[in-house]
């Protein structure tokens, strides 16, 4: 309970800090991605189903909400209607889950993953064909602002039109919170628990009276529904949905979010969604090579921290709590330092190379030091730290082994 109270408190205090519009935009995307990633983890982390097509449910839920948004009349009630759109999204996602899950949940493991991949591509390309429903390349767009002027409610003037981004923040915060709580609660229900049992040992689950396929199917529907909530939130936030939103790319992205965050922990996907959304929207502004960095981060996590960021956090906390913390922390910080040195060198290489390759003729100038690609100094600045950092890491690792 406590973590959720903290979560709620954080959500409520954020606007008080007077975030800039950039921050609001970022936070809104984060909220959507949190819901999306959590819903994905109902499948991957809990039920052990690796899906490459989760965006289908996000997208279909979103499309339904989008259409609903366009039907809602323009009035004060329209604003309330827009606010409630994620419910429609849920219905859409769950319905899609119920239809698609029927054939795909009969099997788990790789066949399930492959079916999901096929269905994602299928739905995405079908979406391009049915223009009246999905809008073709252009997609379907709408207007969330259903009322222009402030209205008086109980004697107070309320200025909540869903137009400005700060209004949308409240909408997103509300639904993020509600959906997270519900999804958490889901893990505590008989069905939620049995989904984990089915992941671990479907055969055994059958011999305690549960039909594994049925369990998977129901979880699949629920997960689709929550993905649809995310879709509904996205419909309101972005005011557009395109067939691309159903495709493999966003499906892959949600996989990255959940996995980088850590699928073994409930909060993992939340963490992953926050970090990746941040990278996606802010980082891409700083460096053109952000996808390269994302790839590197991801590979590093897969190789060295399979429990994701949440796993790292938990290990850190445990590390502090357990005896011998001082020595362990010292070693960790040495490691981190060495890794940072190597990373710095790597960043120089990447940034210099990106600029060189782009051919706009600009040079990488960290802290005002110009590092043109032609100068040997540049490569010295880049390669020495990489070598030194790696050597140091090796040294530290070896010393702690002994």
């Amino acid at each position, binding site marked *: 309970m406590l973590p959720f109270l903290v979560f709620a408190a954080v959500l409520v205090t954020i606007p008080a800090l007077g975030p800039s519009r950039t921050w609001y935009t970022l936070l809104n995307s984060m909220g959507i991605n949190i819901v999306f990633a959590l819903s994905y983890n109902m499948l991957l982390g809990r039920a052990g189903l690796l899906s490459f097509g989760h965006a289908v449910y996000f997208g279909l839920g979103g499309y339904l909400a989008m259409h609903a948004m366009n039907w809602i009349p323009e009035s004060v009630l329209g604003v309330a209607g827009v606010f409630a759109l994620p419910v429609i999204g849920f219905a859409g996602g769950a319905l899609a889950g119920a239809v698609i899950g029927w054939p795909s949940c009969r099997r788990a493991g790789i066949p399930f993953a492959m079916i999901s991949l096929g269905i994602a591509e299928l739905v995405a390309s079908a979406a391009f064909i049915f223009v009246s429903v999905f809008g073709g390349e252009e997609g379907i767009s709408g207007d969330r602002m259903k009322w222009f002027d402030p209205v008086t409610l109980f004697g107070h003037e309320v200025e909540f039109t869903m137009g400005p981004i700060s209004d949308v923040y409240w909408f997103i915060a509300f639904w993020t919170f509600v959906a997270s709580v519900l999804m958490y609660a*889901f893990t505590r229900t008989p*069905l939620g628990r*049995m989904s984990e*049992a089915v992941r*671990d040992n479907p055969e055994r*689950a*059958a*011999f*305690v009276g549960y039909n*594994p396929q049925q369990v998977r199917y129901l979880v699949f529907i629920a997960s689709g529904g929550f993905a649809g909530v995310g879709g509904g939130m996205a419909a309101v936030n972005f005011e557009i949905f395109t067939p691309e939103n159903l495709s493999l790319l966003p499906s892959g992205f949600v996989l990255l979010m959940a996995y980088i965050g850590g699928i073994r922990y409930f909060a993992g996907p939340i963490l992953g969604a926050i970090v990746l959304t941040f990278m996606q929207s802010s980082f891409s502004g700083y460096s053109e090579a952000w996808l390269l960095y994302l790839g590197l981060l991801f590979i590093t996590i897969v190789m060295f921290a399979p429990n994701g960021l949440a796993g790292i956090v938990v290990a850190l906390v445990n590390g502090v709590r357990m005896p011998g913390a001082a020595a362990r922390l010292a070693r960790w910080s040495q490691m981190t330092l060495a890794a940072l040195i190597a990373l710095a060198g790597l960043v120089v290489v990447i940034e210099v190379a990106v600029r060189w390759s782009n051919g706009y003729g600009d040079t990488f100038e960290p802290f005002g030091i110009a590092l043109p690609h032609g100068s040997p100094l540049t490569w010295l600045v880049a390669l020495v730290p990489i070598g030194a950092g790696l050597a140091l890491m090796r040294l530290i690792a070896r010393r702690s082994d002994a």
Partner: protein
Amino acid sequence: MTAPALEIVDLRKNFGPAEIIRGVNLSIEPGERHAIIGPNGAGKSTLFNLVSGMFKPTSGEVRLNGERISGLPAYAVNRKGLSRSFQVSSVFTNMTVRENVRCGVLWSMGQKYAFWKSIRSSKAVQDKTAAILAQVGLTEKANLPAALLPYADQRTLEIAITIAGGADVIMLDEPTAGMSHSETERAVALIAQATRGKTLLIVEHDMGVVFGLADRISVLCYGEIIATGRPDEIRGDPKVREAYLGDEAATLAEAAH
């Protein structure tokens, strides 16, 4: 007369051309403890799989309390009150011991696929789980992940999950395999106590266990039951000695005296 708790009628199973179960007939009365012994590969586990719904029989029928269950999927058989354990421990490895047992309890307590209520909200479930844990002596280890349990405890947990659902026909496949003498003794005591008033069908290679526990014994050999009877009858049966017991019959006979 009431119907037998479990009745197997001319059950057959082929895997491709290989006929593994060749017409087994068996009738087990309510409350009976029945053991199945037989050489390796005789088809004991296969028979278990057929009865419990993991495989579909090629022909023949299995009846539980007079009701036909052959052909039903495993979960349906379980819901009708038949529960089994596995020869190789088959528990939910990433869950704690308590959760493992709770999973065994859930369906029988009517929780079904509920997703609108917390698993903790039902006091009955909590109590039943605690009771089972206490019964098998795993209360202290209740919060350990099952994967970290020592082997013998995993076997115990296997039994615990099997009896948790409160089924009245319990089938155990080599429950004491790999246990030491003292652990075996404890396990036998546990089985005896946990299945009191229930019907038990057990496969074992440990003759001490079999002769200590069973009311009746059937000997399965190459997919056929070659003998059924009280322990002393089986011990004396020359066919059984030839097919299965070998020298051990002599040892057993000695021990019995």
